[in-house]
């Protein structure tokens, strides 16, 4: 190997920085979706690498379902402040109150209601592009996603009619009302994300590390005990040492029993893992095409 060689993280990094700068170059009003989760933490570091010493040329946007882990929101706000970035939060609660998101009878999950909330935020700020932290290794429908994912004026993804993406040439041209979702981490795996967090010494929310928590057994997984869907008398409730592997809403995020309390431990744990990251997300399990259906409706 010559000296002019990039290791896998450097390769993924230069690719992602290129994609971010294409966004800055081709769009007028881009935003970066930042939840405080591990993938969007990497996105923010890549944005710093792409745009410093200037200020980040795009605001951060988060759709707050009202069912977030409190640790996640605390981390999100602190990180945005630390970077001097503008953080825009739009709440599902408010969208329901304003009437553009309507829960189905008995619907507790906020997962579906994120979609109209996000689309309304895009319209409110006239964002023409949203950068997201989705990775192709997460899920089968994601595996077919482009770096630049074109959405029509209803925010819909049409898997049969995607723009071909060739070499490193991205077509960012839009007509009014159309929108682009851009995924700089497309080629990253869960392992790459944690290795990058280690290399860059990035802080992550405490719930990724092993901690003691009261959990309830539901649908074959341990969920955190919470006020939104409190345990019923016949449910199995236990105090366990757990961590989250992927963060969704507090009512649907499975916790894994784990002693991993450092980034090094997590990397070792993932290397030996026998289930995928999204194996702990009830929202993806609801049907085999769950993600495909949500993406077609405008999910990122």
């Amino acid at each position, binding site marked *: 190997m010559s000296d002019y060689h990039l290791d896998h993280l450097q390769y993924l990094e230069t690719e992602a920085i290129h994609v971010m700068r294409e966004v800055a*170059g081709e769009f007028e009003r881009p935003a970066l979706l930042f939840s405080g989760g591990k993938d969007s933490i990497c996105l923010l570091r890549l944005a710093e690498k792409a745009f410093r010493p200037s200020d980040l040329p795009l605001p951060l946007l988060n759709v707050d379902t009202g069912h977030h882990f409190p640790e996640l929101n605390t981390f999100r706000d602190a990180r945005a402040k630390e970077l001097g970035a503008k953080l825009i939060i739009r709440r599902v609660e408010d969208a329901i109150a304003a009437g553009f998101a309507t829960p189905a009878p008995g619907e507790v999950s906020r997962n579906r209601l994120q979609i109209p909330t996000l689309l309304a935020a895009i319209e409110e700020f006239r964002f023409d592009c949203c950068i997201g932290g989705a990775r192709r290794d997460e899920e089968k429908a994601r595996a077919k996603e482009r770096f630049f994912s074109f959405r029509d004026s209803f925010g819909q993804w049409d898997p049969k009619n995607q723009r071909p993406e060739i070499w490193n040439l991205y077509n960012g041209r839009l007509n009014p009302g159309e929108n682009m979702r851009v995924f700089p981490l*497309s080629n990253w795996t869960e392992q790459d994300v944690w290795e990058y967090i280690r290399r860059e010494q990035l802080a992550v929310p405490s719930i990724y590390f092993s901690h003691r928590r009261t959990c309830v057994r539901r649908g074959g997984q341990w969920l955190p005990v919470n006020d939104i869907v409190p345990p019923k008398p016949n449910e199995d409730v236990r105090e366990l040492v757990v961590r989250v592997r992927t963060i969704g809403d507090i009512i649907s995020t499975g916790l894994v029993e784990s002693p991993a309390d450092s980034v090094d431990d997590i990397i070792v744990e993932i290397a030996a893992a026998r289930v995928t990251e999204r194996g702990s997300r009830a929202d993806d399990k609801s049907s085999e095409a769950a993600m495909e259906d949500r993406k077609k409706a405008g999910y990122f």
Partner: protein
Amino acid sequence: MTKTVSTPRPTEILRFNTCGSVDDGKSTLIGRLLYDSKSLMEDQLEALERSADITGGGQVNLANLTDGLRAEREQGITIDVAYRYFATPRRKFIIADTPGHIQYTRNMVTGASAANLSIVLVDARLGVIEQSRRHTYLASLLRIPHLVVAVNKMDLVGWSEARFNEIRAEFEKFLPRLDIKDVKFIPISALNGDNVVDASVHTPWYPGPTLLHHLETVHIGSDWNLNGLRLPVQWVNRPNNPTDPRLHDFRGFSGQIAGGIVRPGQKVMVLPGGQVTTVKEIWTYDGPVAEAFCPQSITLLLDDDIDVSRGNMIIGQNHLPGSSSELIANVCWMHQRPLVAGKKYWLKHTTHTVQVAVTALNHRLDISTFETLPAPAELALNDIGEIRLRTASPIFFDGYETNRLTGSFILIEQGTHATVAAGMLLPPREVVRPDATDFVI
């Protein structure tokens, strides 16, 4: 750029794509690679077994691992390029799985443009068919450095060495007419796993590596061009009202190096203006660096205050690029609306987008015979041909054969903004003349 950390993980990425016709068993092959290299997780296997119980009469179908969308499972085809990731202790792999039906050229060009290696799957019973020639030709046109011909379903021809050699001989008849330097033939059964990850007991006559072993060990070296600096400017980095007084005059030119190496103190020229100046600093988030090379993403500071914007190109003084508004290129047509001479498009080349008119269709290529048909009336979806173009202002480029990044472009239809073609430029007839020194500061 980033500090090196010792890691037990593979540090090299091999990107490959798989191509084949509808029933060649591509998805089964990828499923097999993931399954036998233990890259599949329990929940993925569970989902696989669930769908086997429902639709497969109890037989686990490895193709279900990659045929992700419901529409695909219903029709039993792959709609679009799907990307898969796996790693062995030796390497990390990015697979682009490209389907073999009518959208073929469009998808394969998308999946293969960045590949180091291409796997062409051949059904041992059918031998070389039109699709096989088409795939091989595309791999050659895209300048994919390594090719593997995986002769699949060998179990269905009784593991016949003679049949394998026959197919190999058929390929070797037309390979010399193409630009592929490294070709490997491997007899496999993707369904049963022979010679995919583990060596087969059925092929004592085959002395070569298994497919995975070949993927792990094939020498990929550097695919990037390190001769002749090319920095297409993506974004001008100019802090607004910085609090740090040292940043008041900061004016950086950010981009991904598309060729060559750059060092502080080096003389560079900015195109299209032609101004010559010196590199003051290579700025990165992790601090200034002593040199940077293709394909790193960097920010350059220059000695002189020159007007540079997105779409300009910073070049070195050796290996000068071509400069012209009259271009000749091979294109793969990717849209239902055919290309006809005279139409105007947007051409995106590096970070530069410019209006272009297609002035002539020189020829269309018949991929089954490798013969050219002169002056076609149009190029339709999945056609490949040579065209002439005239851009509204000159672009600075290299032949695709010397630099994939500065030798390629896409065409975008005006109005719909659909990406309609992938283009590969022929070598320039004249290069930038450094004697245009009127602009030197």
